Each structure stands twice: as structure tokens, then as C-alpha cells.
């Protein structure tokens, strides 16, 4: 049985549908992420799970029991707020112990759990400090400790890393994953950052305009996006307008307008389109090879074009190539070989190619 089940949840704010017939199941112990652009309804879902909002239609079940009508303080669900929401007049210890005090736990147990939890987030030496004396990362840890100390069934995290700088964020991402494994509590994480979602989650639900577009593991979401929105939102993707010529034996023959035919072997999980269908063929920049020499021509799918732009990023270089039909492709090559970035210059005639099993067909 899933720990949390959302059944056909709909929530409207005037004409705006913040949640539109959303159904999701979250398993116990999972690190589950709601990912989407701002305004896609992910925070509304979180607020309904926490109890600050009620759905207009549909049902929320926690451990199989409906949540409707249960106020936030009676739900075994705690939230880590984006602004951390630490109580400014309480010390770190008082903040973290707050849920236990409200639950009426005996003093001895409070002391024991407090010491344990502060240890867990490496804040034992900050117990007497006040929130305004802490750095962003420390505040973050206090908020986490406070959310975890009373062992909720679910911990909701509302863009908790948004306020941190890039380096600290990466460190907190690692800590967050390690922490979740250690305590075994189900995390429901909300973010608009696809990198965060891919790095942290066991499963991701990609949301757009109140609807869930796709649910899957980070790899599934990245490698086999179900539609153009997901493909566009997660990372960078090249889209070639194509028409399906034939779909047989797990192979797709596609015609790229103005260029020619390509062959694709779609990943096993996706349904094959039918001949005559129009759509887009989606390729990740790192799936493309770029060359001025012959090596790329050995790949069945290759086209010639002109290099228009390069962007040196240190570890990788991004190339923009204009194919002969005018379509721009973005390719990403690692700079593992020395001086590789200098081997092409804008204006060079190049060949772009990719393997059969790269890329997916997306319906329009």
C-alpha cells in the first residue's frame, strides 16, 4: 500500500486550475519530487498534503485513511518551508524541540531526541544559538531537524535549497540524500530546478499547469520524456520535425523535413507510433557527435551542416550547428582531449551524427 495516495485531486483558484485531476502514489521510504515551473501547482499540492488547503474534488489518503477535514497540526506530516520559517524568538534547541513539546512528550525523551537529532544534522554545538546568528546552511539544517525530530510519516520540503548559493546547495543535496537514507522517512520534495530533482529523487513527477505530465525515475524522465513539455523542461533538447515512414520490428523510419531519412530504435518502454504520424524527434546534446572528419559518417544517422557558434564551459564545449535545412542543433562535447575545443571554428563545415538508439519520437 502506498504511504500517500492522491486520487483525482482538483483545486481551482478562480479560473486558474492549480491542480487538475492529479493522481499520484508515493511509496513508503521514497524520495519523491514534484518538479515543474513556478505556478504549475506543485506548491498547492504540497499545501493540500500539509493541510493548509483542501482539494475542491478528489481525495488524499495517508496510509489508506482519508485526510480531509484533518487540520495541519493533527496530520503526521511536517514541512520544511522555503524560508525555513524558524521561530526567531527561540534558540536552535527550542526550535527543534518544538514539535515534541507540542506533542506533549516527556522531558527526558525530548532531551534524548534533541541530542540525537542535533547530532544527525551536525548542529550539536549550536543548540543555544538563535536563528539570526546562523548561516543559511545552518538554518536549513535546523529546519530539517525540526521537521524530522517527531518522526513524521511524511516530510514535505518546499524548495528548501532555493535560498542557498550554488556550492552550498550541492553540499546540502548530498546531505539531504544521505539524511533521507539514514532516517528512512518518506520525503516529498518540491522544486523548479531539474538538476536538483534529477540529483536527489528516486522518482519525479513533472508538473505543468496543474497536471502531472510524467512520473518516473530521473533516468526515465531524462532519457524517455513522454512529451515535448517534459523534454523541454528537463535539460536541453534538440527537436527535429519528423514524419513517421514506417514502424516495424522495433525500428522507426523517420523522414526529417528537408534533410532525409533517419532510423531510430526507440527505448523498449515507449509505444511505437504508426506510419504517417507527424511529430518531433528529440535528441540530447550529449548524444550528438560532431566532426569535420569521416568518423561520424559511419553512423547511419548523420547530416552535414555548418558550425555557427561555440561556447567553452571548461569541462564541456557547446556547439551550435546549423544543418543544411536550417535547423539548429546543439551538441555538447566533453573536453577530455586537450585543446579539443579549438579543433572547430565557427563557419567550419561539419558532420553531425548519432547512434540508432539515441533520441525519442514525441507525438505532437
Amino acid at each position, binding site marked *: 500500500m502506498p504511504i500517500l495516495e492522491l486520487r483525482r485531486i482538483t483545486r481551482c483558484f478562480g479560473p486558474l486550475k492549480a491542480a487538475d485531476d492529479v493522481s499520484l502514489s508515493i511509496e513508503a521510504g521514497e524520495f519523491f519530487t514534484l518538479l515543474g515551473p513556478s505556478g504549475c501547482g506543485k506548491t498547492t499540492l504540497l499545501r493540500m498534503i500539509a*493541510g493548509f488547503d483542501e482539494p475542491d474534488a478528489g481525495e488524499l489518503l495517508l496510509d489508506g485513511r482519508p485526510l480531509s477535514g484533518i487540520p*495541519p497540526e493533527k496530520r503526521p506530516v511536517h514541512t520544511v518551508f522555503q524560508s525555513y520559517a524558524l521561530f526567531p524568538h527561540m534558540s536552535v534547541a527550542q526550535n527543534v524541540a518544538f514539535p515534541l513539546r507540542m506533542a506533549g512528550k516527556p522531558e527526558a525523551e525530548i532531551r534524548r531526541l534533541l541530542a540525537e537529532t542535533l547530532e544527525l544534522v551536525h548542529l550539536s554545538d549550536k543548540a543555544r544559538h538563535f536563528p539570526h546568528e546562523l548561516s543559511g546552511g545552518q538554518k536549513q539544517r535546523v529546519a530539517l531537524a525540526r521537521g524530522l525530530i*517527531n518522526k513524521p510519516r511524511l516530510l514535505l520540503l518546499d524548495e528548501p535549497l532555493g535560498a542557498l548559493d550554488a556550492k552550498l546547495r550541492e553540499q546540502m543535496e548530498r546531505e539531504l540524500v544521505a539524511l533521507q537514507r539514514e532516517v528512512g522517512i518518506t520525503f516529498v520534495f518540491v522544486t523548479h530546478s531539474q538538476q536538483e530533482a534529477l540529483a536527489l529523487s528516486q522518482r519525479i513527477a513533472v508538473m505543468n499547469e496543474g497536471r502531472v505530465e510524467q512520473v518516473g525515475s530521473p533516468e526515465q524522465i531524462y532519457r524517455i520524456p513522454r512529451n515535448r513539455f517534459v523534454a523541454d523542461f528537463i535539460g536541453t533538447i534538440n527537436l527535429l520535425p519528423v514524419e513517421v515512414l514506417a514502424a516495424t520490428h522495433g525500428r522507426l523510419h523517420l523522414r526529417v523535413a528537408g534533410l532525409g531519412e533517419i532510423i531510430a530504435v526507440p527505448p523498449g518502454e515507449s509505444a511505437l507510433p504508426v506510419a504517417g504520424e507527424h511529430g518531433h524527434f528529440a535528441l540530447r546534446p550529449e548524444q550528438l557527435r560532431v566532426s569535420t572528419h569521416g568518423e561520424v559518417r559511419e553512423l547511419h544517422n548523420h547530416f552535414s551542416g555548418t558550425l555557427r557558434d561555440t561556447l567553452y564551459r571548461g569541462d564541456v564545449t557547446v556547439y551550435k550547428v546549423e544543418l543544411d535545412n536550417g535547423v539548429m542543433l546543439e551538441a555538447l562535447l566533453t573536453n577530455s582531449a586537450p585543446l579539443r575545443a579549438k579543433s572547430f571554428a565557427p563557419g567550419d563545415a561539419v558532420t553531425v551524427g548519432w547512434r540508432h538508439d539515441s533520441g525519442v519520437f514525441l507525438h505532437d
Partner: protein
Amino acid sequence: MPLGAGSDKSAAGDRRPSPAPSARPGRIPWLWLASLAVYAFLYVPLAVVVLFSFNDSLLNAQWVGFTTRWYDKLLHDEALLGAAANSVLIALTSASIATVLGTMAGITMQRWPVGVLRALPGLVLTPVAMPEILLGVSLLIFFRQVLDLTLGLFSILIAHISFSIGFVAIIVRARLAGMDESIFEAARDLGASPWRTFRHITLPLILPGIIAGFLMSFTLSIDDFVITFFVAGVGVSTLPLQIYSMIKVAVSPEVNAVSTLLMALTLTLITLASRLAPDLLRRSA
């Protein structure tokens, strides 16, 4: 208002960028003179009152010698003491009640959801902006013609509560406005009922504002003349009314003495209030 001096200084301290060297008053003599004139205008009359309250002469004309006999005389003036007792009683009671009501109004004003009724809690602020004379007349008419109330301590009390609520509400709301709303949700989320959220989170955080509001109300009540004058009726007097009736005869040094005491009390309370809620008084002024 003597409050101006204190809040001006702190505003200069934390908001304004330091002025260019040439604009510093030290460099321009006439700026010094102008400043001095302003402060003299504000404080010399007050200083004279204080000075002559210690003057050993019945006339407020020239300095004769130091005495505390006017203060001594105060302590034996039955009418004045009675009026002072009334004033303190009214100020304490009205400030207490206004603080409770004003705090509730302030919280509601901050939390009220957007909508048609949004303006409703804000209506408690109207008496703050209303001319006192208007408030006095309207309360008098209301008490006499509508309620048929006998004017006295009770009517003064109600009048004072009604004009104090708005001040408390402004201060409490300003205190809440600077806060992250999500801490109140966080408290609920972490297991606190609405009442315990108020008790453990909201109340401790707005307490300085509540105390400042109480001190403000107390001060407003104890030195209110205009409104009290209308609703006091006959036979009941407060300190400001009593002082007024005393100077109708002559400005005796006794009036100077009682004014000095009232001034000291008011200044102390206002200073306390502005310490507790530095940004708030500036905003409401």
C-alpha cells in the same frame, strides 16, 4: 511632540547615508543657529514650566529662589488629587481594554483574507485620524441622545477606549507586517493548535508591540483634554480638566508643578514605548 527628537536621531542613524562633509551643520554657522532656534521654540516653554514649578514666588515673572513648596501644596490639594486618581484609574482601565481589543484588531487587519470585507477591520483606525473635537461632540451626542447615559467616569472610559484602540491596532499590525507569515503556518504544521500557535509564537513575537500600544494608550488617556471635556459631565474631573479649571483663575505655580509631573510621566512612557517599538511610532506618526 517631544517624541520627534528621539525618532529623528535613530532614523538618521540607520537609514540615511552620511551627508557630504560640506553639509555637516558644524561647517555652516547659520544652520546651527536655525537648529538652535527650532529646539528653543520646542523646549523653552516646557523648561520655563519646570523652572517656575520650583520658583519661590506666586508670580510666574521672575526667579526668586528654589522651593518645593508647590509640590508640597499639590499633595494636599484634595480636588487635584481626586482628579489625578480619576485620571490614573481611567488611563489604566482604558489602556488595558483598548490593548486587548486593539491587539485583536491589529492581528485581524494583518491576517484578513483579500476580499470585500478587507476594509472592515481597518475601520477601528478612523478615530486616530478624526479631529478630536469631532470625536468629542459625536460621542457626547451618542451618549446623551442615543444611549441616555449619565456622563461620568464610565462615559470617559468608553471614549478613551474608542480612540486608543486604533493606535494599538496600528502598532501591533506593523509588528506583524515585518514578519515571515510562514512561521505561523510552521507552528501549525509542527503540531500546535491555533490557540497554542498564538500562545507560543504570535504572542511572544508581538509582545513588544502590545506593551508599546498599552503605554501609548495610557499616555493618550492621561493627558487627553478635548474629548474628555465633552463627555465628562458635571462633578467628575480628570487631571487635564482640573489643570484647565485652575488656570482659569490664575496660572499658579501649583499648575507648573502638576504640569511638570505630568510631563515627566508622559515622557517616560513615550520613551519606553519607542524603545519597545522603534520603527512603529515613526510609521504611525
